[in-house]
């Protein structure tokens, strides 16, 4: 493409079209641009347009297109990647680099940002080697005095240098930084000083100040990047200049820079916040050099905190500033800055207490955005909040001053509680702050599972609980002072391990009452607190609160929980549903009388949410609760399964018919559970569904595969004979599923689960005609694309087959597929790979199967397979004695394995939830080593002399020693 007016015109047309809302016009234009972007001069045409086009919209569009073009194409991927050739020719590259900086600096802000981004993308590749004059070009602009230009340079520099904050140290990186420092540090320092001077000369000019402060913010950010990796010599020598000025800026205020906006941080706040970060960087990494300046910063930052308001816009600044103090006060050699009683008192009074106050913004969130409030308050996503920072400062101070700090705060807590008592309806926020203060003071360590695990011994938690928390919760009105109610409930929740059990028991009915509170936060907290209390451990691995202790409350608890789900805003409240699940699990058979009503409510809920499933946690706990209802009821009365089927199948049918994808895997699992409850032959209602389960469309969805395999396994477990007799024509379809699964590297283990169940349960004759095909399929996968996971499953399968059908049958079927196949599999797969098998049951299956091959397979004794006998025995001993071989060849690392291979994965174990892992060998063999010894003994009596001679000629000494151990343990000798 030439740099001609005609081409500029064409490009303008196409750019315009890319802005068209109609895809029929937009898409072809985008395609066209992409097709010509490899042409020489294309980027230069774009640059010309963004500079000279008559229309502003084309200028902007060209700049965005240019930035994206650079982003996609500037980086030259290694020459090995042939389909990604270098699209930008060398002369264009040179021209771009020669022109882009002045162009960026003379452009209006909107375009400047795009070009600045483009420069940093180019810089990432070319700077410094292939763009040596970039820095000088930029630095020269500092002299311009035009702060629009200067800010452009600073912004670009910031995006070029900010990677120094996270990259690993390397010679290459440090060479670059050194080069940058040599060219940039002094001019930046001079600019910093000059800018500060200008700030005082323009102290009365608001618009000038805004520009200057934007520069200062960028300069402070650059300081952070340049000082991050190590303390550069230049900055050490100029620390006085930088730190003195930073300090002054921290203490500076100017009415003209104050903003009216309550939410958005202004320039002054952003600058001070960055300075706090810079000071924290020096305090942490360059303590020795920074020590002389540190006390001044502590004082300045502290004054800053004392004088900063409660508005949201100051939040980042305040939390950064408090975090700075928190990190400094923990260091032993700065202890003295804080230890004075007056200092401590005023930090507590002026910094901590005010930042713990419940603000208008919190109140709003409590009422109108309860989900967000709960997430912040309960789940700890409060990292950057003031309350959190204040809490961290308390904990930091407690490291050295726990006694005095506790003392000071006790006074505060008391006076705040007194304030509250004087006039609760006006002063309730004082009590909120008091509770928060006690909480942060007392908690030294906390986990989700156990609440507070270490508490400050100087705080009497139980006394506070009895005197100040319980009274609120006992109050007749559950809707009065909702924030204090939530505080109280949270207190129980987090100090549940510190408060004595009697007090917890007293609290339970109070919590149940609060399930009816109108405030979403309050009833959610009540549900959550109950759920947490029910999971506490007592002695002997039982629950702390027993079903017996809960007996008086069962009805009211269940009713209240389900009623809470009808409160506005909580129809799909996951905390409530989780509490339902946990209550079932705790109360066990005492819920049985309520099951009819419970299951009705759960099915109604299921029906309702299946219209539009949106809360995955809620849905999950709902299905858990359904499962629990089934399990608990059927444990007491197995015949009840029918009534569950009656209640649920209608909804299930609707879910399946409407193809509610989120719920289908759950439905299959509940069905598996129900089917397994049947003691006798499989009911006809299930059999009617069987053909549908084999529909390919179901198996196309990966999420269905594990639960469907599990369901089919339940069918086979309960109804193999029925399938063989009444649905023999479906066996090919069943095996088709196996074939489909085995073809996938991700799902082959699921295919093996299915196959193992088929082999274990189906009557042998029903499979006769398919047997050979099954093995052929497996051998094909083995030949074409074997993976470690496949081999492991394959080994388990053939050994299971050997156990079920006998070693001779195994050898025969292999050798009918291809002569000497059996020997080849032994030599190439079983012997070298057997040690990779993992899992107790899996190893046992393999041990028993191999023992059979060794001792019950005549061809192993008197054909050419005999030479494999000792190596196979050695491999078996290795399986017993050597650590598992878990090396995986490199390329397999990248296969997407969702589920680790095992005979029963966590997923299919669901089928037996509450039962033991399925072991097809079972009691037949208890100790595989002894079993091996006994089997060898039997073999040796059948052909005296042969076994010892095979052992002595080629079994290695170590293996032989192990084997002798097994023989001794089994008290047998070989003849």
């Amino acid at each position, binding site marked *: 493409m030439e740099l001609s007016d005609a081409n500029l015109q064409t490009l303008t047309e196409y750019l315009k079209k890319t802005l068209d809302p109609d895809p029929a016009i937009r898409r072809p234009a985008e395609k066209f641009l992409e097709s010509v972007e490899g042409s020489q001069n294309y980027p230069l045409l774009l640059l010309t347009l963004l500079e000279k086009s008559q229309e502003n919209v084309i200028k902007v569009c060209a700049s965005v297109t240019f930035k994206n073009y650079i982003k996609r194409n500037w980086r030259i991927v290694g020459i090995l990647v042939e389909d990604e050739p270098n699209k930008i020719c060398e002369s264009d590259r040179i021209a771009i680099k020669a022109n882009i900086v002045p162009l960026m600096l003379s452009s209006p802000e909107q375009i400047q940002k795009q070009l600045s981004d483009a420069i940093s993308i180019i810089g990432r590749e070319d700077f410094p080697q292939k763009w040596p004059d970039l820095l000088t070009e930029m630095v020269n602009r500092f002299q311009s005095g035009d702060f629009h230009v200067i800010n452009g340079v600073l912004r670009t520099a910031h995006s070029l240098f900010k990677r120094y904050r*996270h*990259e690993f140290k390397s010679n290459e990186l440090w060479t670059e930084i050194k080069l940058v420092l040599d060219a940039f540090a002094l001019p930046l320092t001079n600019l910093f000083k000059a800018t500060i001077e200008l700030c005082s000369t323009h102290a009365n000019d608001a618009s000038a100040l805004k520009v200057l402060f934007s520069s200062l913010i960028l300069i402070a950010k650059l300081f952070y990047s340049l000082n991050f990796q190590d303390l550069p010599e230049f900055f050490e020598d100029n620390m006085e200049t930088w730190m003195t000025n930073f300090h002054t800026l921290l203490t500076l205020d100017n009415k003209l820079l104050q903003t009216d906006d309550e939410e958005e941080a202004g320039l002054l706040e952003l600058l001070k916040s960055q300075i706090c970060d810079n000071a924290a960087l020096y305090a942490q990494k360059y303590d020795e050099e920074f020590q002389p300046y540190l006390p001044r910063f502590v004082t300045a930052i502290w004054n800053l905190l004392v004088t900063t308001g409660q508005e949201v816009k100051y939040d980042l600044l305040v939390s950064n500033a408090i975090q700075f103090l928190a990190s400094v006060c923990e260091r032993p050699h700065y202890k003295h800055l804080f230890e004075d009683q007056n200092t401590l008192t005023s930090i507590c009074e002026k910094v901590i207490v005010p930042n713990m106050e419940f603000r208008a913004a919190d109140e709003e969130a409590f009422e109108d955005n309860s989900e967000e409030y709960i997430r912040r308050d309960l789940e700890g996503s409060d990292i950057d909040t003031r309350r959190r920072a204040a809490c961290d400062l308390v904990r930091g101070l407690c490291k050295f001053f726990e006694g005095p700090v506790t003392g000071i705060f006790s006074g505060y807590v008391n006076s705040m509680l007194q304030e509250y008592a004087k006039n609760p309806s006006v002063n309730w926020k004082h009590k909120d702050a008091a509770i928060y203060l006690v909480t942060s003071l007392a908690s030294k360590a*906390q986990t989700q599972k156990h609440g507070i695990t270490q508490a400050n011994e100087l705080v009497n938690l139980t006394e506070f609980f009895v005197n100040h928390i319980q009274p609120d919760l006992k109050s007749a009105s559950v809707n009065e002072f909702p924030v204090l109610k939530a505080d109280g409930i949270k207190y129980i929740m987090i100090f549940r391990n510190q408060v004595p059990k009697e007090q917890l028991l007293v609290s339970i009915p109070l919590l149940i009452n609060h399930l009816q509170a109108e405030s979403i936060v309050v009833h959610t907290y009540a549900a959550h607190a109950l759920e947490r209390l029910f999971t506490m451990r007592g002695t002997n691995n039982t629950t702390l609160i027993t079903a017996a202790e809960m007996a008086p409350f069962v009805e009211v608890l269940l009713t209240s929980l389900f009623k809470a789900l009808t409160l506005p805003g909580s129809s799909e409240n996951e905390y409530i549903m989780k509490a339902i699940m946990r209550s079932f699990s705790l109360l066990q058979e005492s819920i049985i009388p309520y099951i009819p009503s419970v299951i009705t409510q759960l099915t109604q809920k299921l029906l309702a949410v299946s219209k539009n499933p949106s809360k995955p*946690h809620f849905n999950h706990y709902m299905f858990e609760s359904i499962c629990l209802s089934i399990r608990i009821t059927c444990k007491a009365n197995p015949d009840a399964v029918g009534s569950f089927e009656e209640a649920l199948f209608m909804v299930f049918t609707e879910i399946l018919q409407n193809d509610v994808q989120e719920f289908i895997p759950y439905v299959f699992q509940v069905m598996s559970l129900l089917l397994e409850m049947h003691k006798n032959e499989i009911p006809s209602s299930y059999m009617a569904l069987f053909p549908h389960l084999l529909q390919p469309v179901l198996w196309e969805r*990966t999420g269905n595969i594990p639960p469907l395999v599990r369901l089919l396994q339940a069918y086979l477990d309960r109804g193999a004979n029925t399938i063989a007799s009444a649905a023999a024509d479906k066996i090919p379809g069943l095996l088709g599923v196996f074939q489909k699964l085995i073809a996938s590297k991700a799902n082959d283990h699921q295919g093996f689960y299915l196959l193992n169940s088929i082999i274990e349960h189906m009557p042998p004759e029903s499979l006769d005609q398919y047997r050979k095909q099954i093995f052929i399929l497996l051998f094909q996968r083995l030949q074409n694309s074997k993976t470690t996971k496949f081999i492991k499953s394959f080994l388990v399968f053939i050994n299971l087959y050997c156990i079920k059908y006998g070693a001779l049958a195994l050898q025969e079927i292999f050798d009918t597929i291809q002569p000497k196949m059996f020997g080849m599999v032994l030599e190439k797969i079983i012997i070298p790979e057997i040690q990779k098998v993992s899992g107790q049951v899996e190893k046992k299956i393999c041990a028993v199967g191999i023992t059979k091959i060794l001792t019950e397979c005549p061809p192993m004794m008197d054909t050419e397979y005999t030479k494999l006998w000792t190596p196979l025995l050695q491999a078996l001993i290795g399986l017993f004695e050597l650590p598992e071989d878990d090396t995986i060849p490199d390329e397999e690392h990248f296969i997407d394995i969702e589920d680790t291979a095992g005979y029963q994965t*966590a997923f299919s174990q669901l089928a037996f939830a509450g039962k033991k892992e399925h072991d097809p060998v079972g009691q037949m063999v208890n100790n595989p080593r002894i079993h091996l010894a006994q089997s060898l003994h039997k073999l040796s009596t059948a052909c005296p002399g042969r076994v010892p001679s095979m052992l002595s000629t080629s079994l290695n000494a170590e293996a032989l020693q192990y084997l002798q151990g097994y023989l001794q343990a089994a008290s047998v000798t070989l003849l």
Partner: protein
Amino acid sequence: MPVVNEHGERMKKFKNKGKDAAALRRQRVEVTIELRKTKKDEQILKRRNISLSLVEEAVSLGEDKRNEIIQLSLEEIVEAVNGSNTELQLQATQATRRMLSRQKDPPINQIIELGIIPRLVEFLTHADQAPLQFEAAWALTNIASGTSDHTKAVVEGGAIPAFISLLSSPHMHISEQSVWALGNIAGDGPLYRDALINCNVIPPLLALVSPETPIGFLRNITWTLSNLCRNKNPYPPLDAVKKMLPVLICLMQHEDKEIISDSCWAVSYLTDGSNDRIQIVVDTGILPRLVDLMACPELIVMTPALRAVGNVVTGTDEQTQAAIDAGVLTVLPRLLRHAKSTIQKEAAWTLSNIAAGPCQQIQQLIICGLLPPLVELLDKGDFKAQKEAVWAVANFTTGATVEQVVELIQSGVLKPLFNLLLAKDSKTILVILDTISNLFLAAEKLGETERLCLLVEELDGLEKIEALQTHDNNMVYRAALNIIEKYFSEENVDQQPGIGQDGLYDFSVEKQDFNF
């Protein structure tokens, strides 16, 4: 400052089960790029002979005290030096030397530009004029004490052979000044160091060491010897090292602190290299003495001794064992608690390399009570020392038995370790994350994964690891994500459902929940 191996390389070793202990040890690799000021605790490379007072100078010269100092202009100097009047030659050389010896801003460049160096070198050979020889030697010493270019000017003036032959001068002060000048030349770098060695500087230099040698002179000799041992790329030739080593070992027994210090520095250079170089030093049996000196209260002795021992333990397991047998582990606790942060840092680096050894050595480390000071350092040390302490913990967790890991955790390492996840240094964060993974591997073996999970959460580690999932450094972010996914996603045991293949929750009722 020790430099860490390439991360990838280390990780590879890290994950392999049969890890190679040697690969964990981190050699003191020359950092080619420094952002910081040159360190103050390094030994001085070149020194100028500064005249403190005229009186002292006069005494040392044995001159008549009433002699007036003669002021000459540069032009006069050039003329006199190049002339043939021996009296004027001496005056001019002396004037030159005086200018070069003044406390502030010696005019080294101007003197070089005069072009008189070859003449000064020539004066060195005037055996009949001892005062002239001496003045010239002094002046040249001070020129050589400058930048590399300054030293180069002296060497190219042909000074090396002249100074070497002056070592055997009958006048002690001339021979001493020559030792000094040679020290400055050797200190310039490996090139001139080897040039000196090739000119056979070592035998006459060593011949100067005797029980009668005055202490000041002996200090100079030791310092020059240390410069002959110094620098890598290449290392000094082996046979030269073997010649110097026995004398250095003797000097290390001296009572003068400066002599001990410089001989320790020399040994620290000799051990700063491959294992066969370390072996030569270990074979001399000097380790017990070095370990004694590590405990010396004098910083100038402790620093190089610690450094030398630190270098030794970067070697093989056997070499490390030799240092352990010499008692290094009993001295380290004090050094880890030393008031000076550079000592803390070096001590922690040394410990990190011992911790990289086999579990028997780790056991000795535990028995000698190294865990408490290590944890203290991790908690309260200077950042540079904390970084090394993190490496020590990381190496420990790689090679230790599960019992030893339990001991480590019981010593309270977790809290300070987690605090350092807030460090402003990506590498340190990554090493800690790797360490946490190692701890989990050990916990898995003990069936204590859940307990460790709780500890991590209690001590605010979980929250910090979670926050690192948004770290800008890719490797850090991935390592954090890995730990969360592996140990904390489903482990929030209360049946938080995991995400299945389809983005839905895995429906998994765990049995313990139903057996309450």
